[in-house]
């Protein structure tokens, strides 16, 4: 059984925003809603600029699912986190709970009305009939039901964004890191919490003497 995940290779992402455009085009995402976006750090600093493409990460233990007061989230057998827009009340709890800022809310009207939540579906549609007009209108294209992968990953020109079964894409990334001899340091403990030194390891617990 597959566990669908995204992985973005910061060594390859060139901030072209092609994934954002592909997602908007494929799913006809409404104005003001971005299911995917590219985040850049150290913008303009030569040699230090890094970009990654971020959307819903389809967490195995999704916080959006935990906080939803109307329980509109579910997980498919492939590990894709989806929701039922007929149940969503647009409260925004999921937005506050999500560490990636994935849930989006269309705003329309003069009073800033907040619509029902919209997010990346891993191009797996929603709980309407697969490949139906109703599914497309509410959730976008169901590419998994067409035997395809998400549009953002499939059209990424540098193949920075990988999408698919976690095991398979982790293997692809591992091979890449081995061939080029660098890149793994952009992930892991040292990068997240270390003293700014790539490859730093977590402190070892002191031995009792």
């Amino acid at each position, binding site marked *: *059984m*597959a566990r669908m995940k995204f992985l973005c290779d910061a060594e390859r992402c060139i901030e072209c925003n092609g994934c954002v455009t592909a997602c908007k085009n494929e799913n006809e995402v409404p104005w003001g809603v971005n299911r995917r976006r590219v985040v850049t750090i150290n913008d303009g600093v030569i040699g230090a600029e890094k970009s990654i493409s971020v959307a819903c990460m389809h967490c195995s233990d999704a916080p959006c699912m935990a906080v939803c007061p*109307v*329980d*509109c*989230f*579910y*997980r*498919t*057998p*492939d*590990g894709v986190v*989806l*929701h*039922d827009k*007929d*149940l969503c009340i647009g409260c925004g709890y999921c937005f506050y709970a999500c560490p990636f800022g994935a849930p989006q809310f269309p705003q329309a009207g003069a009073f800033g009305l907040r619509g029902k939540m919209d997010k990346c579906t891993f191009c*797996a*549609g*929603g*709980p*309407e*009939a*697969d*490949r139906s007009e109703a599914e497309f209108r509410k959730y976008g294209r*169901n*590419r*998994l*039901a*067409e*035997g*395809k*992968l998400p549009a953002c*990953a*499939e059209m990424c020109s540098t*193949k920075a964004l*990988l*999408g*698919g*079964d976690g095991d*398979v*894409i982790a293997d*692809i990334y591992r*091979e*890449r890191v081995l*061939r080029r001899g660098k890149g793994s340091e952009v992930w892991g403990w040292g990068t997240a919490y270390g003293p700014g030194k790539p490859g730093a390891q977590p402190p070892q617990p002191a031995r009792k003497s």
Partner: protein
Amino acid sequence: MRALLAFLAIVFLSGALGCGEREQVVDQQSEKRYQGKRDSVPWENESPVAELRGGKWTKGNETSWEEQIKQRQLVQNEYKRIEQ
């Protein structure tokens, strides 16, 4: 002796129940809290027409769908594509 056996049985049972691995089924039917419509699975659909350039699998056969989606995933590895 009987009290000791009873005590050991309780310890064993509480250990077996408490330390057992939690069921990790992701099927939405097991998501007890979800109240919405039931979704279908991708492999229950017919393969799309050739113009859509989708995959080919046997309707209802999960393994065949997974196999073709795996092939599609491997296309993302340009090292493999170059070597082919």
